């Protein structure tokens, strides 16, 4: 046996060992990855499904409970929301929110007259069904619905896919009910709509917020029991 033959054999053996080590390690890595992904799928699928169903959540806090009987209010004046988020919320979203609040309050069929007031101009913008009677009769008391946009973020949809980080979209509005003649605050509520759905968007969140505002107005003016008693 010549020395060149033995060195060639050694080199071949080393190569074979390296190949085997590489194959074994790659199989190991693949197995670990597979295991992890299977585990993550197994654990994240239920939460993902649950989030898609219940991802649009509402948290509301009563700042001032409604204790008066608001059934006497037959008219409502809805003011555009004060934007405390300035240019952090798109103009189109603010417009959509104000319009949705008007539309959803109208769809309650609870008030004989609904007026929209633009706070920037501070004069009634739209007055359908104006009766012209200025004397205060039981059904003609006017309610003011006003409020502010306290928080808004569209969230990060890409992070919602991987379920990491502070990714959810949020819209917080604070609503006040006032008597137009006395300017007395009748009730105040903070409504936060949070969207953690992957498939949902900001528009849906805005619609939900407007819906909650309309419900708040509708609930308080439909019954004569206090809000505290109903919760």
């Amino acid at each position, binding site marked *: 046996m010549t020395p060149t033959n033995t060195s060639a054999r050694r080199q071949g053996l080393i190569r074979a060992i390296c190949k085997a080590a590489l194959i074994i390690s790659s199989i190991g890595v693949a197995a670990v990855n597979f295991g992890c992904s299977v585990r993550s799928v197994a*654990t*994240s699928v*239920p*939460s993902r499904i*649950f*989030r898609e169903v*219940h*991802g649009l959540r509402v*948290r509301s*806090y*009563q*700042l001032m409970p409604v204790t008066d009987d608001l059934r006497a209010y037959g008219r409502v004046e809805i003011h555009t929301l004060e934007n*405390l*988020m*300035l240019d*952090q919320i798109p103009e189109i979203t603010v417009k959509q929110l104000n319009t949705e609040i008007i539309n959803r309050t109208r769809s309650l069929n609870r008030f004989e007259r609904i007026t929209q007031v633009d706070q920037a101009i501070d004069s009634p913008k739209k007055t359908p069904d104006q009766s012209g009677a200025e004397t205060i009769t039981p059904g003609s008391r006017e309610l003011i619905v006003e409020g502010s946009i*306290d*928080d*808004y*973020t569209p969230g*990060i949809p890409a*992070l919602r896919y991987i*379920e*990491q*980080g*502070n*990714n*959810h979209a*949020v819209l*917080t509005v*604070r609503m006040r009910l006032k008597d137009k003649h006395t300017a007395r605050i009748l009730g105040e509520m*903070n409504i*936060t709509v949070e969207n*953690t759905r992957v498939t949902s968007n900001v528009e849906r969140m805005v619609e939900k917020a407007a819906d909650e505002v309309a419900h708040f107005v509708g609930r308080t003016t439909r019954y004569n029991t206090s809000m505290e008693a109903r919760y």
Partner: protein
Amino acid sequence: MLRSREPFNVQRALRLALLLIAGLPATCLAQSLSGQPDRQVAPVTNITENRQKLENYKGKNGVLSMKTVILGGDFRVTTVIPFKGNIADYRRLEIARPISLVGGALTSQVSNKQLEKLKSQLEEKKIFESVTVIDSYSGATESPQKRTQTTSDNVRVEELESLDSPIGSVTDMEARDKQRLRTEEEPQRPLDLTLVAVIEVIDYAKGNRIKQALPLDLGKSILTVRLRYYDKDSGKEIGRQIVSGKSGGSSLLGPLSPRDALSGVADGFVDQVTRRVAASVR
């Protein structure tokens, strides 16, 4: 021999004791005289040094980082009104007690806990001479006393220096010259302003760690605050931010993580203030 030496030893001990008694008050007096100005100067220099150290400070990523992946307690910051002015001029910080815009959901216990956390974290940073808690602050009603006083002084000096002012005596002129020299020689000290942070809680959910353990995305701990920064002297709002902290048990430690929404908000607030200070140093 031993008996004869005893009185000498006693005498020596007595002398030493007398020397000590006489020496101690002197050293104490010396310390009190020399120590007092040191104590006054030390925090100012320390703060300047600490602020200089922040030159390479890189802000935290609260939305997604290793810390939030492992421990949770992530936060987001939305700057509504960017900081106006130079925050390096603000050497004192006052934090007003949180105003609840979530009704009874925010208990005084949680409010105090949050306040303590903010105060302790900012004190640890040592970038302000003092961090104090005040009960409330309303920017519009604060009277700008300090500034009025300085402007009135300036007006008086300008009146005296004007060409229309009557010619004074030699002593008056000498006194004015000395005063002018003094003002020229005085090193330019940084302004000593106070920054006031007003906290408004706009969203709060305590959370539930048992619910967090379920794979149903429930029981999240959430805290969202609106921070309004005011210049105490002028009463003007110089910045506004929304800081929101969240902990939902989705981190590696899950519901066992010690961090909650309060930790996220505290981190976010301290990071934002530190960023501004670091930027002013640069």
